Structures are given as structure tokens and as C-alpha cells.
């Protein structure tokens, strides 16, 4: 199966759309593989945390590759691949292409896989310097200058955001896959989930900064439900207006450094958040320069 011609989107409803007919036979159940790149394994653990559903999942799919859960390895191709982690080494680049070629539907899970993760902070740093500071023999290390999402390297059918992913969304992807439909992954803001739950808006009612208006839903508005502002771990919503939100964060008294940091936490590699953080940084530099000029003029 060549990568370029790989048909994406919803798979044909072949045998696996009726997996329950022959749940007993491993060979006829669709094969599921779970892959790991640069990441903390937390998203894979979310799958293992699906305690109530795990049994039905195991009946519906043949878990063919999932090192976090089992040592057994079944050869590909795999009808469904879940990919965790970001691409940070030359070997990662080779491996993700192989995985794509062996996968029917490929879904990336978590902030690392969808936006480079926290390790995408290296995109703003000097990797050579890190390397020499951290490792005794940096010459043995083969690493890339950047941490990039899977979709920067291969075609991705569905993306599940979050650090970690939401268990319900993970099950939705599996249910959708098994029934030959598109998973329902809303791309609107966290605010929708807050309002549907009856949460009172955190920034409006308490003055705490909140990234909810620019962040994609899916977590069930977890942090705001506990009275805390959203940290943006699901990355930018489809219509994120970070410029406007930045102005609000400034008005709420958040220092520029902190604003840069919140945009560059879990989803630093997401274009909308990366650009927002760069803009804040550029403004801060400009402001500092004009302050210096003023002071220079005054003295």
C-alpha cells in the first residue's frame, strides 16, 4: 500500500463493521495497533483506563500491537492505528512512514502527536546546546532540531487532542471506526462545554485568565468545572482568535512571560498557539525597546 494513494477517511464497511458477528475469531476482527513516539505514555494509559469498556473493546478488535499492554506482536497491516507522541528523531520519521503504510485508519492521540507536545519547546531553543548540557556523549545522539506533530509527516485521518486525551473521545473513535462512521470530535471552543454543563464562566465571574475561548472542546470543560481557567491542553479551536484573547489576558493582569508560557505549554507546535506566543514575545520586545528609549531620552 503506497502512502500517496492510501485512501483516507471512513473505511469501507468490510468485515470489521460487523465485528460482533464473529467476535470469537481473532483473525476476522479488525486489527488495532497502538504506537508510541516521543511522549509520556499517558495517552496510551487513557486507553487502558477505559475499564468499563475495555472488555467490549477487546471483543470488538484484535489488539495486535500495544507494547504498553501486551508483548504479543501481530504483523500488519492494521485496520486501525492509534499513534501517540511526536516526531523528534530521524528514526521516528522513517518509522511513522512505515506505520502509515501498514495502517487503514490512522488516528493520532494526544497533544504530542497532534501538536508536538511540551517537547516542541525545543522549536524555540538551540538543540545543540541542550544536547551538550544534558548528555555526557552527545555525539552518540541522533535527534532533530524540532518536535513535530505526526500530521507534519504523514496523512492523518483523525486527531484526538489533549494532554492526556479524553477517554470518552477515545471510545468514540473506536465506536465510529467499528461502525464505519466518522467520529464526533467537536472542533468548537471549550466554552460550549462549559455552557452545556451549566458552568459559570471563570474569567468573567472571577477574573482568572482562561484559554477556553480559543481552545478546542473535548475534555468536558474539566478545569473550569473546578473553578480554574482552561490551560489550553486541547490546542486551538477551529476559529481561535488568539489576538483578541491575548488582549483579554493582558487586561486580566497576566504578564507577557506568562502569556507566552500558556500558549507554549502542551500545544506549542500548534500553528495558532505558536503564532500567538510569537506575537506576544515580539510585542514584549518592542515594548521593552520603547521603554529603554524613553528612559534613555529622559536621562
Amino acid at each position, binding site marked *: 500500500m503506497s502512502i500517496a494513494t492510501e485512501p483516507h477517511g471512513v473505511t469501507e464497511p468490510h468485515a470489521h463493521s460487523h465485528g460482533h458477528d464473529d467476535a470469537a475469531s481473532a483473525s476476522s476482527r479488525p486489527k488495532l495497533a497502538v504506537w508510541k513516539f516521543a511522549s509520556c505514555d499517558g495517552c496510551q494509559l487513557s486507553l487502558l483506563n477505559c475499564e468499563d469498556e475495555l472488555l467490549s473493546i477487546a471483543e470488538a478488535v484484535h489488539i495486535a500491537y500495544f507494547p504498553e499492554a501486551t508483548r504479543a506482536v501481530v504483523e500488519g497491516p492494521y485496520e486501525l492505528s492509534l499513534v501517540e507522541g511526536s516526531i523528534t528523531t530521524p528514526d521516528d520519521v522513517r518509522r511513522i512512514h512505515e506505520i502509515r503504510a501498514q495502517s487503514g485508519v490512522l488516528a493520532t492521540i494526544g497533544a504530542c502527536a497532534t501538536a508536538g507536545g511540551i517537547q516542541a519547546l525545543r522549536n524555540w531553543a538551540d538543540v545543540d546546546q541542550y544536547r551538550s548540557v544534558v548528555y555526557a556523549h552527545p555525539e552518540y545522539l541522533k535527534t532533530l532540531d524540532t518536535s513535530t506533530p505526526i500530521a507534519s509527516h504523514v496523512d492523518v485521518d483523525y486527531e484526538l487532542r489533549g494532554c492526556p486525551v479524553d477517554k470518552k473521545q477515545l471510545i468514540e473513535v473506536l465506536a465510529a471506526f467499528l461502525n464505519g462512521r466518522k467520529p464526533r470530535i467537536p472542533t*468548537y471552543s471549550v466554552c460550549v462545554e462549559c455552557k452545556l454543563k451549566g458552568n*459559570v464562566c471563570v474569567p468573567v*465571574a472571577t477574573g482568572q485568565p*482562561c484559554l477556553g475561548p480559543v481552545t478546542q472542546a473535548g475534555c468536558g470543560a474539566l478545569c473550569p468545572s473546578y*473553578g480554574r481557567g482552561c490551560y489550553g491542553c486541547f490546542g486551538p479551536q477551529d476559529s481561535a482568535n488568539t489576538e483578541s484573547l491575548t488582549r483579554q489576558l493582558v487586561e486580566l493582569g497576566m504578564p507577557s512571560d506568562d502569556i507566552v508560557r500558556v500558549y507554549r505549554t502542551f500545544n506549542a507546535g500548534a500553528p495558532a498557539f505558536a503564532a500567538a506566543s510569537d506575537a506576544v514575545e515580539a510585542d514584549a520586545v518592542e515594548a521593552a525597546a520603547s521603554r529603554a528609549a524613553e528612559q534613555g531620552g529622559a536621562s
Partner: protein
Amino acid sequence: MDDIRILQASGLDALIEELRSRGFRVVGPTLRGDAIVTGEIRAASDLPRGKGDSQDAKTYRVRSRGDDAYFGFAAPAQSSKPVFFPAEEVVWRGHRDHDDDGHFTVERDTPDGAPIALLGVRSCDLRAVQIHDRVLAGRSHVDAHYVGRRDGAFVVAVACSDPAASCFCASMGTGPRPATTDPETGASSYDLLLTEILGEDDHHFVMEIGTDAGREVADEIGASMGHPADRDDAVAVTDAAAARQTRAIDTTIVHDVLRASAESPRWEDVASRCLACTNCTLVCPTCFCTTVQDVSDLTGDSAERHRVWDSCFSESFSYIHGGPTRESTKARYRQWITHKLSSWEDQFGMLGCVGCGRCITWCPAGIDITEEAAALGRMSGLAAPAPAT
């Protein structure tokens, strides 16, 4: 129905108890965390006694009033919209057999639960309920779940004494004192209308009777007879509240202003501020857009259709194959405000805005519908230029 009663503040518990004993689930304002919200009221102690609120663009704070007023605040964080029109509900449940060609059965969901008594509903929110009666229950097709909850509901309205800076019901003609009857149906707007009178050493409600059911309740709890002068007191409260409102929309021109503004440069301006976060639509007491979500289990044999609030500010809202018809935020804001202040009138013979001010308070970017309407008015040439102040 010129029947005026006096209910002492201490009699609120009797009123609540009477409604409960009649089988109603009483729903009204209550303090939860950082805000006054709408919730179940079991006793007068559940009401936010002594609490007021400060509301303005993108700010909401609860404050202590330093008195005993039960209803000394403006619009709660959410209106009574979710009471009759919940954010999410099941439309039907289905099951598929596997042995028989995907044969399936579908069963409509019928909401159960006690009939609702709204206690303390504000004039703006009451008007919004009447608007929903028209939109969801007054056309050729009705929302059966809404009708089921709405029919048989009991309404104790409370006239507004303390509008917030975000309020503009007076300009919309929707408050602060509710109209006696629904202008569309002629039915009484409320069963009982209370106006809170807080004197030096006197705390009572002027109770106006709207329906026979309201009178029965008033009789049952022994609300004493009042005088026409008591109603003058009540009207004085709402007149003063109206006079304190600072925001306004000019309803004489706003329909035509929006009609004329489809290509206004103002949309770019507002889109630079708008977060497309959907908050305004989801706190609006009249916004009624929903989507359906088909939820299935892993096998796909059990499925449910859910009806869920939706918002014209989300990209997916207008999605057809090939992409959204309203791709830009400016088109989405234009759709929303034009619907509220113009096309709603074409559709339903009334404006879709009741002046509750929630979209102003709860917009994290502080976008102000009255300011946008005024700016569009000036830019369209239909409103006089802003007076020099």
C-alpha cells in the same frame, strides 16, 4: 384582573411550600459558587438573600447588599431557558437486531418529571419564555419536549428593582415590569407577580394576581388584600429601575439598520474582537439553535439521538459538504446580531432580544450588542450621529 395582595417577606416559605405541595418542582435564583444561577428552591433560604450583583461588559461579581432583599440582583448567570429547553436531551432511543437485516426499532423519549414552577423569573426572561412559546410551540411543527415541560408550568414573576449596568430591557419594552399578558397569545404572562418592597422596618411583596390558579395559591397562603396604592408602590419600584438603565437599543430603527448593514465595514471590526467562543448564544435566553448527535455503543446496535444546544458561532454550524457557508467570524457575528434584531421580526413578528444583557456580561471579550447596534446605526446613516458629550 385587579386583585392586589400583600405577602410579608416571612410568607415566602409558605408560597414555596404551597407550590411544592401542589406537585411543582420550584425553580428559581440561588447562589452557587461565584454566581447567582437558576436551581431548585426548596425553601426561602435557598434564595440569594442579601446578595446583589455587579455586571458590565465581561464582568460579573456577586456582592453583599447589606440588606435582606431576596431579589436584589439583576439577571442570573443563566436564564430559565434550560428549565424548559435543556442543553441536551434524548429525542429517541433505538435498537438494532443483528440477525435480521439490520432491523431496528426506535422509541421516542418522553420527558417525565414534575411540572415546573418558576419562582422569581425576571421580566426579560419571562418575555424570552413567551418568545420560545412562539418559536418552539407556536408554529406548524413544535418541539414536543418543550411543550411537554411548558404546559402546566406555574409562573411567579418578580419585577426587577436593581438592574445591572448591562441591562437594557426598558429600551426593548420587555421590562423591568412584565406585561400583564403575552402580546401574541393574550394569555396571562404570569400566575403571580411579586414586587419586593424593602422599607426601614418593613419587608413585603406586592402580589399581583394573573390567573385563577395564582389566586388560589394566594388565598391558600393567606396573602392579605392590598390596595391600589400598593400597586403604585410596585410600579414606582420598576419605574425607578427603568430610569437607572444606561444601555439601550433604538427599536424604532434597529430592524432596518441591520437589513441595511449586510456589507458594513463594522463586521471586520467586531470580528477582530469576537472570539467565536459561542458564549453569547449559549447565555441568550432566546437563542434556540440545536444540533442532533447520534450516539452509538461500540457494537452500533444501540443508538440514541440527542438534541443539543448549538451556536451559529461555531464553524460546524453551517457545514455542508464542501465546507461551512459561514466560514468567517464576521459572517457568524453578522448572522447572530441580524437574527436577534432584524430577521427574527420577519420570522416571528417580534425581536429576538429581550435586553437581559447577558451577552454583554458573559462575552469574554466584552462585545456589547447595544454598542454594535448603535455603531451600525450610525454607519448605515439610519441613526443620528453620536451626540457630542
